[in-house]
């Protein structure tokens, strides 16, 4: 039961993230990427508390979560920098306007 709730939440977050990514606003795409990453984080936290051998929570899962939050921060930083530059070039944050390159 507990596993169903945790896994269900993680998969729901994953699906919401994928839905967000399919939108046209650049900021929303970046949010979607963060959501998918956080659904993975959630799974790591849950599995870390399940996979314990000696009565304590597995520190591996939790340390991975800390590191992956840092990685997510890097993705957001580079992504926001690209969005700022895209706004300077195209005067919009609508990703449908970025269609100079085709085929």
């Amino acid at each position, binding site marked *: 039961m507990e596993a169903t709730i945790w896994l269900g939440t993680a998969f729901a977050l994953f699906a919401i993230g994928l839905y967000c990514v399919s939108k046209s606003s650049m900021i929303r795409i970046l949010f979607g990427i963060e959501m998918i*990453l956080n659904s993975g984080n959630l799974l790591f936290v849950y599995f870390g508390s399940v996979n314990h051998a000696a009565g304590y929570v597995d520190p591996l899962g939790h340390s*991975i979560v800390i590191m992956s939050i840092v990685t997510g921060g890097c993705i957001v930083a580079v*992504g926001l920098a690209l969005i700022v530059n895209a706004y300077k070039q*195209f005067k919009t944050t609508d990703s449908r306007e*970025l269609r*100079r390159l085709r085929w």
Partner: protein
Amino acid sequence: MVISPALYFLFSPLIVGILGIIADKLKITKLREIAAILVSLWGVFSVWTLYTNGINAGDILVVTIGGNPPLGACFEIDAMSIYMGFSATLLSLLVTIYSVNYMEHDTRLTEYYALLSALTIGMVGVAFAGDMFTMFIFWEMMGIVSYSLVSFRKDSPGPIEAGFKYMVMGSIGSTILFFGIALLYGMAGTVNFAQMSNALHGTPMNIWLYLVMAMLIVGFGVKSAIVPMHTWLPDAHPEAPSTISAMLSGMLIETALYALTRVLYTLYEPTAFSQTMAVLAFLTMTLANITALRQSDLKRMLAYSSISQIGYMLIGLSAGTMLGVSAMLMHVFNHSLMKGLAFLSTGSLVHEANTRNIEELRGIGRSMPITTITLFIALLGLGGVPGTGGFISKFFLFSSAIPAGYVWLTVLGVLNSAFSMGYYLPTMYKLISRPLEDTKEYREAPISMLLISIILAVLVIWSGILPATVISMAEAGAEALVNNLADYIGAIL
């Protein structure tokens, strides 16, 4: 013993960055470039040190950081890792030397060289990683650095658009990969390759293992441009500076393919993924070759050619035998030389003529003969003409599919390879044919750029005429992965 490689890993972008800032402040010319070249030379020597320290005799080197494998991070270096690391650092050295003249009119060069060495470290780190999470960290390092390098010339809309597209697709891929790693952690209780393989390899396939395999293929496949996930590549490679195109096309997509191969072979039996990979190989090479035929942009045509070469490499992965993987590794090395050479020579042409359109480049070969000849060698090698490295590795790739039962794949591969000459040969013809109207005067590229092109061209021909060294190294790598998996697991447990 491992001190020098460890220091290289930790400090090389930092050294380049700090020396670059000092060079800017004190106005010392060329200090930044010399530092970058020396650091990439250090990278080649580090990998060589590791290779001569037992890995050439078949040992597996394990370096743990912060505790033993279930908890600590871990590098596990075998013959296959060292092969990829050597290819990456060699290409990086040549590209760095080439950059000195190619990038001299750009600003923000300190950032450029620091990011270039960080990109190299990311690729070597993916090749050396001994657990999924270390691999993921280096994967992200490689990815994030390449997003910013693709959009390096941020003053024009093209690079920004290509970089944004690449960033979105690459990040979605790596986050899906992260989700897959989380599921694997739930199943195996660890993220270490050896321990995961011990827990999962050979167990009957169930729905979760198939789900994880799909996530791994999507996650790694986005960066290695397997066909349904390839759409970022034809935008990103032409818009990046030519040196970065050479790094991305020559090594980054192959590093992604290496990661896919390593993880699939460690976790699954080859029968589980063989047929999927065969279909993906067919799709990748065919669609990319057909699309490449109708390109008017020289670099974009080369980018599509990269995708089709990934398709050929997937044949080796789908064969599921040692022969297939060794052919794949051979093609990785040869492709890194050939595509590096193709993009660097194209860079010289584009640098001089300021256009990437093949029609407008018509006749440029008459005033830049040496660059054009090296480009010809690269294109002939990519098409698989005997006498170049491309022929040897393609021969091994196509013949590896027959014992695995994929005769149709061999036939289609040979047909595709012949078909691909349909866009290499007209390009070569246009480059040397008589110009249509006014003859513009072009100067031959500077000596350092020429020198790198000539070195790469000689290496391409060397690996075609005397392929024994490459074959033996690739076979050692494939044997370490496919046949001696028990040793790889035993080194940790």
